[in-house]
């Protein structure tokens, strides 16, 4: 005789506690010192960006005013980061540079996210030809190195910080569109969305309440990492002459200005470059920790 399978009594497995959003961020930071370090860096840069004018020892030199008698001073008590070829205090230049760097980055991310969210949400929710067209366009954008795309766009639009912002936003929106589109498409047929539709809730309201709110976390994570990357790219474009023009306190431009004398007067390039590095590193460290939210498979760190 053979017994059939024994009826298995389901055992209760403890369900992992789930954390979302800010609470999760707090938890991540408290047990992850690298992410906490990233947060310190980001806060530091944000403080400089907002209060730079009052923190910088020579704000007018920071903005570009030359001070020829003080030119090419090595770092010392009077000028911690030394002075550049026009006698401007490098520390002040670096501090004043935080504002423009972060505002361009913020503009790019907000603009790209807005375009991407709107197009992605409509594409995913509506489906049909609109979806096809939008997805083809994003694929087209993504079949090209994004920094090169931005460089070409700036080259054609003409150098300058505003055009850099526009070019980077153009290069970036498809990534957001794809995130939101995937979310919208997966939610479209869920019962609560159908119920809302059946009750006559207007489309924009469904999009806002059910679809956008569900994609907030991935978008925020993406935006955090992107701010860092945009700062890096803005600096890179300025370095080759496609971004801000002298005498703007742009970090990339400042590295370029000291490039020829790196072996003689190292401080002119080193400190602005360090500012870019620190900013990007800060955002990347936080973004890396936040990725746990998106990808719970990798929580065991």
């Amino acid at each position, binding site marked *: *005789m*053979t*017994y*059939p*399978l*024994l*009826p*298995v*009594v*389901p*055992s*209760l*497995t*403890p369900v992992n506690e789930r954390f979302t959003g800010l609470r999760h961020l707090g938890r991540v930071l408290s047990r992850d010192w690298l992410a906490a370090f990233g947060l310190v860096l980001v806060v530091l840069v944000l403080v400089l960006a907002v209060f730079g004018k009052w923190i910088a020892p020579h704000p007018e030199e920071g903005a570009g005013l030359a001070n020829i008698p003080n030119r090419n001073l090595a770092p010392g008590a009077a000028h911690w980061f030394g002075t550049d070829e026009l006698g401007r205090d490098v520390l002040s230049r670096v501090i004043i540079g935080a504002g423009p760097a972060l505002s361009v980055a913020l503009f790019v991310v907000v603009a790209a996210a807005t375009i991407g969210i709107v197009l992605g949400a409509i594409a995913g929710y509506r489906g049909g030809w609109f979806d096809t067209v939008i997805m083809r366009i994003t694929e087209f954008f993504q079949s090209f190195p994004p920094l090169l795309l931005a460089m070409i766009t700036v080259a054609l639009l003409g150098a300058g910080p505003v055009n850099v912002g526009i070019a980077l936003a153009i290069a970036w929106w498809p990534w957001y569109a794809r995130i939101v589109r995937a979310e919208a498409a997966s939610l479209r047929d869920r019962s609560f969305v159908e119920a809302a539709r059946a009750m006559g809730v207007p489309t924009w309201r469904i999009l806002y309440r059910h679809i956008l709110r569900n994609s907030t976390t991935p978008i925020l994570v993406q935006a955090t990492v992107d701010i860092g990357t945009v700062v890096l790219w803005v600096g890179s474009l300025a370095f080759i002459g496609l971004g801000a023009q002298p005498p703007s306190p742009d970090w990339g431009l400042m590295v370029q200005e000291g490039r020829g004398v790196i072996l003689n007067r190292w401080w002119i390039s080193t400190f602005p470059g360090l500012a870019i590095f620190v900013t990007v590193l800060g955002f990347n460290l936080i973004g890396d920790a936040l990725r746990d939210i998106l990808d719970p498979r990798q929580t065991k760190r």
Partner: protein
Amino acid sequence: MSALLSVKDLRIDFVDRGRVTNTPVRGIDLEVGHGEIIGVVGESGCGKTLTGLAVLGLLPGGATATGSVLLDGGDQLAPNAANRRGEDVSIVFQNPGTAFNPVFTIGAQLRNVVRRHRDFTKREEDAHILNYLTLVQLPDPARAAASYPHELSGGMLQRAMIAMALLCEPKLLILDEPTTALDVTVAKQILELVLDLQRQFGFSVLLITHNLGIVHDICDRVAVLYAGRVIELGETAEVLKSPKHPYTQGLLDALPGNRDPNMPLAAIRGTVPSNLLGITGCAFADRCPLVIDECRRIDPALLESTNGHADACIRTVRA
């Protein structure tokens, strides 16, 4: 005759940052003789798989074992147990579809094992692998060796897994739910193959399962586990015919074939406690139809009543 495997007071704790969070195995004693087939049965979460892994000498991260597990004199809880894994003791897992590495051929994976434990030339390795793939009655052993896992059926993969397990002539073969993921007919063939090979080579088998039917079909003895303890142990026929412990009784009653077909199935009420920390008294007390006050106070020991048949219930009348 000394036993091949001797497990004494095995406890397994899960520890997180210095704190014990659960104790899924709470003092197991078990002996397996040479050439014996023993079944370990119980619900999911009763500690049967963890016990199997402790015997193998490989616990999952965060688990620590105390007590002793001696396999032919070798300490399986010692760090050097890895040298005996795959050689003195090997294991066949539940799901052959995921137990093989998807990006290596079956032959390459068997070769890794041979290479780890034997000092063969490449040609000897090939012959050895082919020999064992033939032994498990794979229709085309050479082709099977050259195949990737996704190219073979579940039954064929399980045969290949058994071949891998036997490659280095183990003294003990652990089968962890070896047929659960397979069709009924394929499962039957696999079990017949194991029995056949066991008669041929004489290794011992530790069969972990929740299926009393399989135990009945192939096991000499059976150990019933509940909440990390052996609660009944004895000859298979004896235990299945006259269970002593109310839990074993409940398991048998829950089998459809044992009941009047017009009566509803008698499932054991309640569930296994999800965490076994700080249990006092009998762990089955809350679900037991025969529970008395003492059950919650006295921790029942596994005691022999009749010849080789032992159970852990304080209400059992012993001679």
